[in-house]
């Protein structure tokens, strides 16, 4: 096992002793202490572990950490701007009081952020498609839809 070099939220990490098949999820959580990326199913069904890899949303439970080497990994802890300002989605999530238990919300936000990055004015059905892979047992879907529209509007206002 060679040294694994990972770039997470703009920081470089050199990690030893990472098995070839160890998913990015467990490296983030157990080795880097970035526990905001959550485990819900381990089989790509729930989306709780969604992170960005080179800007695209992926399920961290399915991506071997070694496969992420050389690409920028962004987790929920890195979604806010480097100066600490919240991403408009995070602000919308707070204002619309989206979360109930909140466990799924890191994944929901990461899927939503990837959506807005490529489609700044998504329709309801764009949202449906982009977030269909993120389960919420508490049933916060209606507020998720509203918050995404609101964040898109805020982004349009300030210009991106």
């Amino acid at each position: 096992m060679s040294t694994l070099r990972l770039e997470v939220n703009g920081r470089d990490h050199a990690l030893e002793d990472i098995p070839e098949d160890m998913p990015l999820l467990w490296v983030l959580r157990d080795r880097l202490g970035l526990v905001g990326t959550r485990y819900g199913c381990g089989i790509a069904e729930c989306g709780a572990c969604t992170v960005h890899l080179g800007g695209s949303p992926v399920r961290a439970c399915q991506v071997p950490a070694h496969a992420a080497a050389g690409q920028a990994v962004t987790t929920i802890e890195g979604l806010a701007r480097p100066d600490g300002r919240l991403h408009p989605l995070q602000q919308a999530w707070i204002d619309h009081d989206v979360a109930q238990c909140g466990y799924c919300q890191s994944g929901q936000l990461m899927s939503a952020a990837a959506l807005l990055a490529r489609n700044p004015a998504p329709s309801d059905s764009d949202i449906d498609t982009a977030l269909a892979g993120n389960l919420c047992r508490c049933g916060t879907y209606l507020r998720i839809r509203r918050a995404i529209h609101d964040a898109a509007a805020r982004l349009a206002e300030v210009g991106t």
Partner: protein
Amino acid sequence: MSAAGSARRRGEASLQAIAHEVLTRPEAGLRLAVSRLDRRRFLQLTGLAGGGLMLAFSLRPAGAATAPARETVGAETLAPSAYLRISTEGIVIHATQPECGQGVKTAMPMIIAEELDAAWSEVEVRQSWISETDFGRQFAGGSTGIPRVWLPMRRAGAVARVMLVAAAAEHWGVAAEDCTTADSHVLHASSGRRVAYVALADAAARLPVPDAERVALKPREAFRLLGTRVTGVDNTALVTGQPLFGSDQQLPGMRHAAYVKCPAIGGRVRSANLDVIRALPGIDSAFVLEGNGDLTELKPGIAIVGRDTWAVMQAREALEVEWDETSAARDDWAETLAEARRLTDSQGAERLADQGDLDAALAGATTTVEAIYSYAFVAHAQLEPQTCTAWYHADEGRIELWAPTQTPQRAVSNVAGLLDLDESAITLHQLRMGGGFGRRLVNDPVCEAAAIARRIDGPVKLQWTREDDMHHDYLRAGGFHALKGGLDAEGRAVAWQNHFITFTADGRNPVFGGNLRPNEDLGHLIANFRLERTQLPWASPCGFWRAPGASVFAFALQGFLHELSTAAGRDHLEFLLEILGEPRWLEPDNTWALHTGRAADVLKLAAEQAGWGRSLPEGRALGLAFYFSHAAHVAQVAEVSVEDGQRIRVHEVTVACDVGPIVNLSGAENQSEGSVIDGLSAMAGQKLTHERGRVRESNFDRYPLLRLPQAPRVSTHFIQSDWSPSGLGEPVLPPVAPAVCNAVYTACGRRIRQLPISEQGFRLI
């Protein structure tokens, strides 16, 4: 008695004990707890000195006797109860109950802040410690949270407010009754003076604490914070991925553990290749735990401890166990189904109610209707699989637990019994839960983590897999209802018979959630009514699943009522209102009972808001259902369309609900929306299939949760009656399935009588 038989009996007794705690209702005399004092009188009552009004004072000095052992409170801190602290540092309110997404960490402190007249933006909410002395019982269950704390928390806020007013009045040399409060300040209107609570804390802390029961509370008209929309206190931490949840716990040197149990509940370890496991990379140890003979605490199993979750998960793949299943559960859904179907034709084993002359009424009825309704066993599937972190400090003989549990105090006693420790040797930190829904009323993961921690050095986090979670749940019981109804020539309901087939684990009592009482069957409002029950044996433990019992009884009973009104050719709303009759409490002096007037009001409101009776295009229809549970009256109208006779789209669900005054409107709406979605989720495709005691479904691929594209619009309308508030975490769920299924019938003429609806080939799109 076999070991597993006794474990089952002990487990059942523990589940009944939890049920007892959860179902113990707050004090009964809560009828108009919202006082009707007018504003002037309220101000007089809360004035302290001068005006001749005497408030009873206890002799207890503030801040000393009441200071919690785990926090030092100096004279400069106003802490008349453990609920709050006011000092120059600011205003801190303690969130005492466990947070699982039901919103109590925000809603409950709001109740205190309201009576305190604190500016919400200045309040810092902190999760409290565990102490029955300071806070009474701490748990989240049975939708009893808000009603249990409603008075004590209001009093806690009011007591502090009265003391702050007294301190200001003394300082200014004015009469307390001439002072008012707002936004964390005491004001003296005639002199225009104003002082902040934080500046008064030190002086107020030196005053005697008034008797909480005699401090006047605000009249409802004076509420400024309660009833508004307040966003969750943890929202920022949640959206930035801060470690809040049980599974987020990290400690220096922490190890990770899995606990592998027999897939058929009650099985024991006969042998396992532990030497192979111990030699695997990243694994520290692997050992067998025998279990303590209680299925709700520690089942027998194999602990694997290692460097990280992945190493432990990989080791499990290599684990080979021979289970001793001599006394394990052998539940089999296919066999059970066949047996239940056979029984629906016969009489019930017990008769729980027999009112009027059912046989004669059925014989004399102009029209009779018969139907069999059934629902499958389901799992909780809260999104965070079970987890708990524990650290046994061997040198001090004490243990520390970081537990996401709905019953933290019970967890302490569970672990005390398990490890033979004094409760004082146990420190439990309450952590946020990634969903509860009743699953985390049972503390098996806490017991497992404690038992593992007892065997190793340093802290250890136990993390269940999704598969563990689904295979070792405390289930929502399945059930069957063979229903018969009779209508007279005018289309009025005159007869109702329900043969309810449910399950028993101990051979005597029904499992939890399988206990339909006659007064919960709305059929008892019909003159001739009979409820019979037959219990089938079932060994896999059943527990508390959001709105236990109600969540499924509603489907059968409200569906069948619609069958009757349809057979009578009558409007369903009008039919239901007729059955409810005159406004009255069904159990006089019990405000936890159904009030037919409140029921009628929510039905009419839901109908009005949804445009009941309007014409809709072909294949599209409205369905109506009502249910009463957890002291809440809830009616819903679902608007659905059906394509190809099987694909159902739920467009909108209109909810009307009376739970008394609303505490946090945003949280309340969230619970309503969430319950609708959760109800649809369970209705659509959730089902556990037991085979030889094993659950076949393991993960979300075969146990689907509703996804965003399937979510309908939900609008919620509250009747904020003057009855004391009741909880909202559960009661909106039961009417969802019958409202949708009734609408489906009207839309396409096919009656749904099985849950999940996928059993009849229906799909939610």
